[in-house]
């Protein structure tokens, strides 16, 4: 049985001492969980180790912690898996001659620590959940029996419903680290749970609210940390992107954060150039170089432009001219994608796993199956969100007809 050095971050606000590390050696199989090891220490050695935990099967969401630098649930992280992670305070270089691989367990980030591994989720996580009107605002009239809703919609929102509110995504959200007011991954995923639910009456209002909030959907920086952190496959960032797509494409909400115009500028930029022409992106996001709104942004960006010129990352020629022209293949992709009746949505939560050979059809859905018209009388897209834009962008139809799935969810 392998031995592990379990380092636990300790903090007791009553002691007057600074946080410190406690160290214990535990002999346990590598397939036991980090929580098993912590509880062994608590049961047999030191009953004062503070950690929330209950179900031990990754459903109650209590035991969110950081293990060797990565956030997750202590109960479904194997000791062997945690020990292999090679960074942070649990770094395990063999040359240091450690007796046993180190597993360092710390409280989650972005939230104040109450004691040891226990953080104040009310102060951050739940406050943000409350921010997004986290309950169904019923479509009227409420039917006598159930609402009639397509199967796909219910499976789709079940992905965000599967969130256990553990806080792992909040812990390592980089945007929240910079902007503590950012609504954040968990709460925005919760928002999608209602925006994707055809029984909710306030899709537009919710989207408008979160698009106009400068700490809302356009505050996310696409760092993928929340997707890595989530132990339940909720993929918060994907849900944020779906909120943006609904806000921008379905409801055409032109927000004051310029998120809508920026995304359109981006798409048009690629359509024109084939590759991203950075120098146009900023002014186009504000309506073009000569738009009065763009002028202060351009002036503000001058120092960055000067640095880029000095370092040779940009030349006056590349800045002002358009050396690339979109090749015909790019044009064909645009034509193909825009020629569809509905949006192609990929959602491996709904469709299964990459190695699933027998999957046919239904893996990707053209969204024309949809139901409920939105406020503008257009069909709301149904079913799943985009997950794997790389596969989608090449030839989504071909992928769909072959296997129904693409990149795998392997967690």
């Amino acid at each position, binding site marked *: 049985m392998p031995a592990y050095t379990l380092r636990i971050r300790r903090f007791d*606000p009553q002691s007057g001492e600074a946080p410190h590390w406690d160290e214990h050696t535990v002999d346990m199989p590598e397939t036991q969980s980090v929580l098993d090891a912590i509880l062994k220490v608590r049961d047999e050695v030191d009953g004062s180790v503070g950690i929330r935990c209950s179900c031990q099967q990754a459903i109650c969401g209590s035991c969110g912690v950081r293990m060797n630098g990565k956030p997750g649930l202590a109960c479904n992280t194997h000791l062997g898996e945690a020990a292999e992670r090679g960074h942070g305070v649990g770094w395990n270089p063999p040359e240091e001659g450690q007796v046993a691989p180190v597993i360092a367990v710390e409280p989650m980030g972005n939230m104040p620590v109450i004691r040891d591994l226990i953080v104040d989720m009310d102060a951050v996580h739940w406050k943000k959940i409350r921010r997004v009107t986290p309950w169904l605002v019923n479509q009227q009239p409420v039917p006598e029996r159930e609402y009639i809703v397509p199967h796909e919609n219910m*499976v789709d929102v079940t992905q965000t419903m599967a969130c256990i509110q553990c806080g792992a995504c909040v812990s390592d959200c980089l945007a929240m680290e910079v902007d503590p007011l950012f609504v954040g991954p968990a709460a925005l995923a919760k928002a999608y749970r209602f925006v994707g639910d055809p029984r909710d009456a306030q899709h537009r209002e919710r989207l408008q609210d979160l698009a106009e909030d400068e700490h809302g959907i356009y505050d996310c920086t696409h760092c993928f940390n929340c997707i890595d952190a989530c132990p339940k496959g909720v993929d918060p960032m994907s849900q944020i992107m779906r909120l943006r797509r609904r806000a921008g494409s379905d409801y055409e909400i032109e927000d004051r954060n310029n998120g809508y115009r920026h995304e359109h500028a981006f798409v048009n930029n690629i359509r024109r150039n084939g590759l991203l022409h950075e120098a146009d992106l900023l002014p186009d996001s504000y309506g073009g170089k000569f738009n009065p709104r763009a002028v202060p942004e351009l002036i503000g960006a001058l120092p960055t432009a000067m640095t880029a010129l000095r370092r040779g990352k940009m030349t006056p020629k590349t800045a002002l001219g358009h050396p690339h022209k979109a090749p015909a293949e790019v044009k064909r992709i645009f034509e193909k994608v825009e020629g569809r009746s509905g949006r192609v949505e990929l959602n491996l939560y709904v469709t299964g796993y990459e190695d699933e050979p027998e999957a046919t059809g239904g893996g990707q859905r053209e969204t024309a199956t949809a139901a409920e018209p939105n406020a503008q009388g257009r069909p709301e897209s149904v079913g799943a969100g985009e997950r794997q834009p790389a596969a989608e962008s090449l030839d989504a139809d071909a992928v769909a007809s072959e296997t129904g799935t693409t990149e795998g969810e392997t967690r």
Partner: protein
Amino acid sequence: MPNQDVLIIGAGLAGQRAALAAAQAGATVGIISKVHPVRSHSVAAAGGINAALNPEDTWESHAFDTVKGSDYLGDQDAIEVMCREAPGEILWLEHAGVTFHRNETGHLGTRAFGGASAARTYYVADITGHAILHVLYEQLMKHSTQVDSYEEWFTTDLLQDDDGRCIGAICRNLRDGHLEVFNAKAVILATGGCGQAYKPTTNGLIVTGDGIAQAYRIGAKLMDMEMVQYHPTTLAGNGLLITEGARGEGAWLLNAEGDRFMERYAPNKLELASRDVVSRAEQTEINEGHGFPDGTVALDITKVPRRRTLEALREIVNIGRDFAGVDITREPIHIRPGQHYIMGGVKTDVDGQTTIPGLYAAGEVACVSVHGGNRLGANSLLDTLIFGRRSGEHSAARAIQTSMPATPATRVADAERYIAAIINRDGGGRRVAAIKHELGETMNQYAAVFRDAEGLATAHEIIRRLKEEAPRATVDDRGSVFNQDVIGAIELGYMLDCAEAIVIAAEERKESRGAQFRTDFPKRNDDVWLKHIDVTVNGADVPEVSYSPVTITKWEPQERTY
């Protein structure tokens, strides 16, 4: 000192449903939970919730299945109430936002479940409890002006006035350790069962029988405590639950020889016989040497189409992978019966009233009794919601006619001294975890699927010894911020009380019925034992046994086969 019309202790499905119902009825409501509400163990309920909502189905059919499942120990008036009100409750949940599975026409879809004569289990993949619990919490956030939620507060005492009426509770704020008196015109216990008295168990670490023991200690009657459900499909090592939904979707049970043994035990319902029957069949196979060397049989989920498994049984795919290293879509997984649920609890009527005035109970903590000797799968969520709501409504109505009680300040001082005494123990005793471990193994050995007089007597003896030892158990933590050590010491006492009541009732019932199988009395004996066993304690901590009749309305006891 918060004053409430209705104070609810426990914020799982029963507690939250009670809070919403009481608030709806116009009462001021406080809800207290030792964990954040969404951590409550209702979150782990997987398979679904039963209701005769399809036009072809009838509540009478649901009720009969439940009566038969209970081995005729369930009170039929209560079962009728539950099954009649079930369809309305499903629709209430649907309108509140639960993302129930839909069929091809967009209507609510069902799956098959054990012991049921129709597919009447409504579900959200295999996270039904989780989905409902989180939706109820959404509603609690929506109604936060009407319901005060005290999250991470631990109840140490139930308060009574001189007439024995329950008038509130004393609770400890886990964040800073301070004690507070909560006065209330009515108190609803919704603290769940006591699975942690067993090891292994499918229940979470928080499921320590708090409410059962607290009510018992102030004189409430406990009923049907001998009826402890072993779930047929739990993982060998850690006792984690594999949902009955797997068998509902078509999975088979196989012994080590590849024999589908349920054909011999329940030729009609096979894997979907009621849980006591399936667990006994498995244990018999294992005991007779037809199991695997690790003391298990196999659950073969590869019989279910893989796509369907990935969509509808996603959680157990993860559990198989993370906790057993098995891809359940490709190979059978080893399982065995494991402690899962207690049918017994604090005796209540159909409005949740216990034998203590002003004290209600709902959910697993309570015994109405709708489950009798054996609970059907997917009836527990229904029980929590129906009787949670009814308790909330009834207590709110009661509160209107009652004046706000006051608690003498000395009670807080007593509670403070009690806690301080635990924190200041001088050590020297065994560790809390060691005592708890011995208790769990004892119960799992002697008060499990098969029982006999000798084993139960041994268990009782061990429990008495542990009860004497527990007050000296070592506590390391001297602090007041999130002192989980002191809570663990208190919970140990609760589990010991529950365990003793279980063993006493199991010793008393000299027959085999439902989950109670006595190898020394292997037959059901309706002439003598068609009655509930009630357990109470008097002041001297000596349990007393009494009986109460089983209510029979429509369905006379018959032989029970599946």
